[in-house]
């Protein structure tokens, strides 16, 4: 057990856990930030996607001890009122079915748009291929990403 100081969604937070604990479980079990989801635990599904310094990272494979001073953003901290352009585009296209994968999808999409404001179809595929949607909302996700890109 060790104490870690984390910067989560703009707040300084402390947690006492073992060094190997994946950030996913720190967020979910210790900070009740359950918007970040558990899907596979082996970096294959993307449900646990968060941002480290604005870049998409699979939190199930990131030990808490490796985070350090870096800024963590989760779906809960993406926008103050759920009005990030990507979130708005998701509503506009009524993307979700069950909704379980969608936080991860949104975090991957926002990271993509942070780095590439006008991605092509192929670039969208590449950035989003790590996020599985078992309900099959891919065509809507793609449309929403394009809408969000154009709204900026």
């Amino acid at each position, binding site marked *: *057990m060790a104490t870690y100081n984390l910067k989560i969604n703009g707040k300084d937070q402390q947690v006492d*856990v*073992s060094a*190997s*604990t*994946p950030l996913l*479980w720190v967020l*979910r*079990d*210790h900070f*009740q*930030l*359950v*918007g*970040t*989801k*558990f*899907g*596979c*635990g*082996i970096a*294959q*599904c993307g*449900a646990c996607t968060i941002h480290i310094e604005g870049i998409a990272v699979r939190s199930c494979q990131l030990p808490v001890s490796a985070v350090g001073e870096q800024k963590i953003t*989760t*779906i*809960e901290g*993406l*926008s103050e009122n*759920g009005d990030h352009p990507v*979130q708005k585009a*998701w*509503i506009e296209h*009524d993307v*979700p*079915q*069950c*909704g*379980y*994968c*969608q*936080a991860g999808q*949104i975090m991957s999409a926002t990271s993509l748009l942070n780095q590439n404001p006008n991605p092509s179809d192929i670039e*969208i*595929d*590449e950035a*989003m*291929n790590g*996020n*599985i*949607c*078992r*309900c*099959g*909302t*891919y*065509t*809507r*996700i*793609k449309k929403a990403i394009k809408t969000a890109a154009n709204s900026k």
Partner: protein
Amino acid sequence: MATVKTTLGRRSFLKSSVLAGGGMMLSFSWFAGCEIPNRKEAATIEMPEEWFELNSYIKIGDNGVVTLFNPNPEFGQNVKTSMPMILADELDVDWKNVIVEQANFYPKRYDRQFTGGSQSIRQGWNILRTAGATAKRMLVTAAAQHWQVPVNEVTAKAGILYHTATNKEISYGEIASLAAIQPIPEEVELKEIKDFKIIGTSKKNVAGTEIVTGKPMFGIDYQAEGMLIAMIIHPPAFGMKLKKFDATKAKSMPGIKDVFKIDTLKSDYARNYFDTTTFTELITVVGNSTWEVMQAKKEVVVDWEQAPEHTFQMDARGNKIAINVPAGLESTTVHQTKMNQYNKKPGNILRKDGDPEKAFKNAAKILERTYSAPFLAHNTMEPVNCFANVSAEKAELYGPIQAPEFIIGTLSERLKLPKDKIQINLARMGGGFGLRAYGHHMIEAAVISQEMKAPIKMVYTREDDMSYGIYRPSYTATYKAAMDENNNLIAFHVKAGGIPESPLAPNRFPAGAIENYLAEAWEIPSNITIGAFRAPRSNFIAGAEQSFLDELAEELGKDPIEFRLELLERAKNNPVGENNDYDPERYAGVIKLVKSKSNWDEINDKSRGFSAYFCHNTYVAQVLDLEIENDKPKVNNVYAAVDCGIVVNKDAAKNMGEGAIIDGIGNSLYGEQTFKDGAPQKLNFDRYQLIRMSEAPKSIEVHFVENEHSPTGMGEPLFPPIFAAMANALYRATGQRHYQQPFIIEKKIIG
């Protein structure tokens, strides 16, 4: 206007005393519990000071805000929006003033809280309309009383009541207190279909904002004071059971409270059909946090042994029967050999028209093809989980469940608590696809909580989930068609079976369209557990049948669409046999619609596959275009035509159709669970391939036949036929027919 008796859905008028004062049985406060619909105006919805309950589905606030309860469990099919839309339309309220809440399992208040078989809307239709119309009638009566005017002079529109002769109006909110004490009318009038204002439009998912902002809404998100985390260890293979285990090291690890064995069902308990439990003896590890429990789980040293052949008791509609579970460690290679053997032997004849034996004997030509498909795991994105808090007096559960009514009795037996002391609260489910019709996880969580005397949340790892069973069965089907010397189709034979059930539906198309017809089934027992999986049985047999019809059309020198239409014409004008369970006209209707929407006659330069199917009361026809890029199929467009009667929520219905199509394309190419010595070989998404964004179609169009038939389901029917649309398009692109799913594994796809 149609008049209906309100005895329909009568349970909904039982005002429970628990609800005295308009309160709810949930432990959350109104504000925290109320979902604000995701519209801009939503932010301005003000909560009333007082609520008045008109029936189980409807509460009206003194300021006119309306709360509608969605009775059925939600797993992404969006019943939470569409079922309240039906209520709102008959109630005649402005959707802007509606708040939707998920009802918990409350059999005294709701008639049918089961999500499955694409039946929520179909079976809820009359109940919800009646509930909405009854509440409206009570509001109208109250206004008439208030104004001292005849009831039939009062009209209602968008939450306001009018008496035109005297120029009076009053809002639902103002009259709600008087409406709530009106007697329930014996009969009510339902709207004419042409008068619907909300049904048939597109309303956004009422949970949209919560989803995109990551609010806790799934079972796995649940937190409670003093809650512990539990995980289970189940045998690594079907046909194995626990011998002994040593948890000394695991118990000493940080954060671990206990490691022990649980028995989920007692051996003398007679199970119901949804009590599918692969392993009744499990080890559980309980601790403070998920990661600590995961670590300790790996340190439990377990000895497994082969389970002998055994039986369990099943309660089959009041009759106790013994179900046999064979011993042995099964493998996919052996399954395949066995299925081929069974498929060569005579099966059970399920339907016979004319004299098929003679027709085949006299045939000038016979086309025979065999199709097969593997077991499939549901792989819901949210792994199996459940929260339970069980004390000596009562139990509270919260988790993903499609069929709470089928697990409540089992819980009651196992926990030795009366049913009314067990509250099942319905979490939004991170996918269902049939898996969550089976409530074994609720029993497991409850038993662990009872032993620990603490609230616990039990969570499966992905590996536990994918290897637990309740799979879509593995199937094989052989189709044969006989032609005479003029190349006319004279006989048709299907023989289909599986492990452990046959996928055959003998009265479906093309039965009824061919003079000489034979359908036979067979089954191979197994200890691998199976369960409902999106469009059970149809999800295989549709693909096999429609692939065969494609090849048969080619053999007959006919266009695949014209060939189906000819058969349906025959079934309509001069049907063969009885009990043909489809309407040839509606079936042909979707085929013609997709033909025109896809420009079937004009576009000849694409690799397109056609397929159609009728199941779960809904007719579907599809055209899929693809090209081969780097030896991989790239699906460009999918056109679907659907006849599901009245469409309640258009865009949401399209979303579900798109999802079913993508799901089917993925499973046709990659989906399979395989076994070696009883052990499932795919335990996580590194080996179990699911479709990803780059493989999804570029565009999907879902078109609806417009008619006034009562609505039928959308969750399943677009899934089964797409397997054949894919196979038939692949053939046009590569010249190779595909007979074995998954197609990517079957043979190399060459451009």
